[in-house]
């Protein structure tokens, strides 16, 4: 097997291994965790850490699996297909920043480190106002997913990054429930004691945005598969509705959008793995995230429509996919933010 073949084989293994937390077809665990606190399962989280998934993309020299973003997007896609709520993408951001630090227990699942970086809605700016002075952190962070389950927050400030224990004095956390059954935390730091860290979030944010696109890719894949199966079994007017040409063509359109999303996400992962120029990486990520946000909402909306009335019940699993897409489509930048960023970054490559 050549090198490319071997790499494809590793990716296949990542995909297979994801089955451990995504038992085929069973969404009962996911359903049961909705609207609970902290919205995910500690035991499953521990398992995810045992697999080393938060550092899957990191080079082996930094304690990772060396599979790069090509590996991580495969994993995120599979977790998306299973609607897995455990905060892998947040933890992988933390792993990227903490890599090399003597913080192995943080990565091993004993402690969960969740980045708290956002200060404005629909923004990718990690440190607008928060300050870190004399190891004290002051500021306000928004939309922190699954914040209720964190042991530490990895916080971005103007002066740099810092680690703050969840229970430290001066940390106030309030939670808003989200449509998918999880939460967004709003965290206020008022001179909270913080341990400064080296590094920055630039690369980690790009990886999180791309992984989110991959997560959307996965949930769209599964929503589409469920919908195709429904079309084939639901009988109206004496035949499976899959025989109606209008629904067949709509399914074809969903398939095309899904394939575009897949191609876009995968090519962005290649770019992140092979390209060191940050603007080029950002353009690729923006392209993938913009496509994933739009296509996943398109697919899940149409999945509801194609299910008819049953799609509007909470009992039907298909709705879980729409709700998940509603939350994730705008995480790490909306489609429109990413389109604008792409236009600003990407060279015109059309010399035809």
């Amino acid at each position: 097997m050549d090198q490319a073949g071997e790499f494809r084989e590793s990716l296949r293994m990542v995909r297979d291994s994801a089955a451990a937390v995504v038992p085929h077809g069973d969404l009962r665990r996911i359903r049961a965790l909705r609207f609970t606190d902290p919205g995910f399962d500690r035991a499953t989280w521990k398992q995810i850490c045992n697999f080393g998934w938060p550092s899957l993309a990191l080079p082996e020299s930094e304690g990772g699996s060396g599979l790069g973003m090509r590996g991580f997007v495969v994993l995120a896609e599979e977790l998306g297909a299973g609607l897995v709520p455990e905060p892998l993408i947040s933890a992988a951001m933390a792993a990227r920043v903490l890599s090399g630090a003597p913080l192995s227990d943080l990565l091993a699942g004993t402690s969960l480190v969740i980045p708290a970086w956002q200060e404005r809605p629909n923004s990718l700016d990690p440190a607008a106002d928060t300050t870190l002075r004399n190891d004290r952190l002051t500021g306000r962070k928004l939309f922190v997913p699954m914040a209720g389950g964190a042991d530490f927050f990895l916080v971005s400030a103007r002066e740099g990054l810092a680690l703050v224990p969840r229970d430290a004095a001066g940390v106030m956390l309030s939670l808003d429930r989200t449509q998918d059954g999880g939460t967004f935390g709003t965290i206020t730091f008022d001179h909270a004691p913080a341990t400064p860290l080296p590094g920055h979030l630039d690369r980690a944010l790009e990886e999180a945005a791309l992984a989110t696109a991959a997560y959307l890719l996965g949930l769209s894949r599964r929503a589409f598969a469920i919908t195709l199966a429904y079309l084939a079994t639901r009988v109206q007017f004496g035949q499976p509705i899959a025989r109606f040409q209008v629904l067949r063509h709509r399914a074809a359109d969903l398939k095309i959008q899904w394939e575009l999303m897949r191609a876009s996400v995968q090519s962005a992962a290649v770019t992140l793995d092979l390209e060191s120029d940050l603007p080029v990486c950002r353009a690729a990520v923006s392209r993938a995230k913009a496509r994933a946000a739009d296509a996943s909402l398109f697919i899940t909306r149409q999945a509801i429509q194609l299910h008819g009335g049953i799609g509007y019940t909470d009992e039907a699993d298909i709705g879980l996919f729409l709700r998940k897409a509603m939350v994730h489509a705008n995480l790490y930048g909306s489609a429109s933010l990413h389109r604008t960023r792409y236009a600003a970054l990407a060279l015109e490559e059309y010399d035809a």
Partner: protein
Amino acid sequence: MPDISPEALASLEESAFRSCIREFLVANYPPALRNPPKRLHFRDTKPWYLALSRAGWLAPGWPREWGGMGLSAARQLVMIEEFERHGCARFNDMGITMIGPLLIRFGTDAQKRFFLPKILSGEHIWCQGYSEPNAGSDLASLRTEAVLDGDHWVLNGQKTWTTLATDANWIFLLVRTDRNAKQQQGISFLLVPMDLPGITVRPIINLDLHDEFCETFFDTVRVPRENLVGEINRGWSMAKALLGFERLLLGSPKQASYALARLRLLAERMGLADDPSFQDRYTRLRLDLADHKALYEDFAEQVRRGESLGADVSMLKVNQSELYQRITETMLEIAGENAGLLEPMGGNRELHPSGLFIQSRPTSIYGGTNEIQRNIIAKNVLELPG
């Protein structure tokens, strides 16, 4: 209470009629119930129901002899417009809009005398049992069956999407009474008290996490023979005959109009009000709404002229629901992370993109999916061979 009787009201010129309704709403409608985010239960709307009842305003379309206002379709439309403009909640109106008119047209005298006053008094609250799990778009394939056994119909089967069935004490059903007849032909119309043994109601939690819809199960329920309306096996055509200008309402610009105003508020909150590319999208939606209103007005004008509506009214339903959805999709896109919030932003009911997005989903499904509506347009309006 209004100073004006239903009779006097009906005789007013349109503009006076309109003002009179507006005044009534301002004076009587509970402010807390304006523009509710979700469908309300009878426990919430009962005071308003009874207020309308006391004023004699509950049944605009019924003839006066049965306690209605005897308004023309045109006047009913004005009344609905004013109620919508005021943001009045929809109450449990199946008795008023569906079963009342059906009985008035097809019921026996005994049925009219028994049921109509109890609808007006609020003693009977009705729900509708048409759809079944395997009879949605293809309603004519329904299988809930009633078999005559002496003086009773023995009823077995299951209905779904029985809206607010938990509020109701009566249900009207389309049931199969001849399983050998073809499709629509063996179907009858049956009135059933909900407290009979063998009836189970199970609320369905919907995508909006609300319980307005229910499944209703019938297990060997014995229904008095006289509860059948009209002729046996003619239920389908009676139910269809009831479809009147109300079909216009499925295409009313109300939802889209409401949503567009909220899109604008949301854009302001998100700092996008002056963003040129948002402006471009917003203007397109405004124009779509304005043109939809112009088309709606053409149909409303037909109703005002006393003409009946053709199959082409389906166009309104398709266009309105998809416009409403485009607007809420735009909300979701511009709301940033707020699009994921379960509750309104900062507790402001006007700023709830995810809620409105979800609520707009079923509008292209209920009342005949948009796919079915397009089938109707192709067949009955364009008369394409098929």
